[in-house]
């Protein structure tokens, strides 16, 4: 039996569309936008899990509902067996939420003062407080800068301090809302390593990561939920989702030597959805990317056509679909 850290059952949340005073006054005919629509998700204990989707997909709303900051219209959330709406105090102890906004710390205070303040509010006993603050500072690598004001910290340091604050009372679940959004590539990689190696692997935390960064989701997450217009469109390994939702099969074809201008003719073949030249290959080579409807039928036909027209086919390989393709496919489908 799988041990779930988070169980989300048929969760729905709609927000009123209000764009002006007129909408506010005519509340009886208000229209609603579904931020979450019948979301069901079971997240296992331990590891990094991704909530991936474009802006406005409902990622932050989902995390805030999990954290108890937004009340759902329907459905329920259980955190390590504790119902969020039924036992808000019990559920608070099981998770921490690190918002995307870096302005959730007191910038005029030092890092240590911030943590000491939140340690008191989180009821960490006075005799343990100093040690616990030192531990989490060490864990996020801020011990040397702990007595500087937060206003002097870089964005990455603020993000790490916010995570340290969340770790003070040692919750099992961490909800991170786009933690690398404002970081430069080096700082982002450092934080990603920390999330995967320290939080998930070493400390055994369940980390739920909202992101619109495909690479981050692919590299960090064991399972990824694709959220689109409030619906969970997929919940699987990143590679499996990419294969399933990545759209029609794409193939890279490399020809060598002088070509006879076959690209235009290829486009006219049955089953070929698109054919285009791509960069790559040697000076004498021509690289093509083909999108086909039925690979088993269409690729042999393409090779036969090229050989019949005197082309020398060096290589044919399938282009692996990425999460980006999956997201782009969904966006096209929705449009």
């Amino acid at each position, binding site marked *: 039996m799988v041990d779930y850290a988070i169980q989300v059952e048929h969760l729905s*949340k709609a*927000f*009123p569309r209000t764009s002006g005073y007129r909408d506010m006054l005519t509340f009886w005919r208000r229209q609603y936008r579904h*931020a979450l629509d019948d979301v069901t998700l079971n997240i296992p204990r331990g590891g990094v899990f991704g909530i991936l989707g474009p802006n406005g997909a409902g990622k932050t*709303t989902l995390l*805030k509902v999990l*954290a*108890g*900051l*937004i*009340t759902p219209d329907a459905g329920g959330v259980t955190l390590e067996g504790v119902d969020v709406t039924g036992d808000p*105090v019990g559920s*608070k*102890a099981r998770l*921490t*939420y690190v*918002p995307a*906004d870096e*302005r*959730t*710390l*007191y*910038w*005029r*205070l030092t890092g240590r*003062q911030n943590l*000491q*303040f*939140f340690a*008191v*509010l*989180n*009821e960490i006993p*006075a005799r343990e407080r100093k040690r616990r603050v030192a531990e989490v500072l060490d864990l996020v690598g801020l011990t040397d800068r702990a007595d500087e*004001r937060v206003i002097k910290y870089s964005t990455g340091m603020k993000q790490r301090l916010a995570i340290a*604050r969340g770790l003070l*009372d040692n919750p099992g679940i961490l909800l991170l809302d786009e933690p690398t959004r404002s970081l430069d590539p080096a700082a982002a990689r450092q934080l990603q390593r920390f999330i995967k190696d320290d939080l998930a692997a070493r400390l055994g935390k369940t980390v739920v990561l909202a992101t619109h960064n495909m690479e981050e989701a692919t590299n960090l997450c064991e399972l990824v939920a694709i959220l689109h217009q409030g619906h969970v469109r997929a919940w699987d390994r990143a590679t499996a989702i990419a294969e399933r939702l990545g759209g029609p099969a794409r193939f890279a074809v490399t020809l060598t030597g002088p070509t006879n201008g076959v690209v235009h003719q290829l486009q006219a073949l049955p089953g070929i959805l698109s054919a285009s030249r791509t960069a790559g290959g040697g000076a004498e080579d021509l690289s093509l990317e083909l999108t086909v409807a039925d690979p088993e039928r269409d690729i042999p036909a393409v090779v036969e056509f090229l050989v019949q027209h005197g082309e020398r086919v060096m290589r044919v390989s399938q282009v692996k679909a990425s999460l980006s393709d999956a997201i782009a496919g969904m966006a096209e489908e929705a449009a």
Partner: protein
Amino acid sequence: MTSKLLAMLKKDWDEALSYRLAFLMQAGGVVAPVVAMYFLARVFDGVDVAGLARYGGNYVSFILIGIIVTSYSGTAAQAFSSGLRRAQLAGTLEVLLLTRASLPTIVVGWSLYPFLRSTVMALVYLAGGFAILGLALTNMDLPATFLVFALTVAIMASLGILAASFTLVFKQGDPFTMVLLMASGLLSGVAYPVSVLPEWLQAVAQVLPQTHAIEGMRLAVLQGYSVQEIAPQLALLGIYAGMLLPLSWWVFSCAIHRARADGSLAHY
């Protein structure tokens, strides 16, 4: 709960201290009115002001009590909504609500530093009044003074919590508290007795809780009236507090519920 409240007070103190110039100017701002009061005392020295006999006849003592009560009332009425607004703007409201501190603890915590500032200011006024302005505190009836003070703070804090509810839902400072404080400053007898107002304005003044708070405080502090002697003022203040406290807390709970429902806790 005490340790959490103290932590919130210390955090606000540390933050205030980090703005050194503003902190020094605030400290200077407390002393300046005492100096102004000194010159006012010289103007009114030996002058028999009509309508002050009920309060001992000393204008400086009269106005000093009016200013102290008004200052506390202003703090109580504004501390909660300004604390909430600061947390919304700084982005700390959601993370505070995610801690194990209860909602009442957080709300009360927001008001502690402003109350500390008002208390320091009141003590400086009283010390200055006692040392250089001839304010006599020997008559003061402590139980009556304490009761008037507690009921006044309860009433104004209720109005403050109502203002915070408005801020939570509409994301702007509420205009009603501002109007009430302005009306109280003009009509409640802070700088002049209510009896000098036209009759129709006197009737309006009687509706304002601060009128009875200032009257009760002056009688208890300057004339030494006992609890029984200021029973009419205490009764009125008690009725206001009894109605407003539960009402304000219920409205605030509704506002929090509404902000959680429409996902606007962090909006500003």
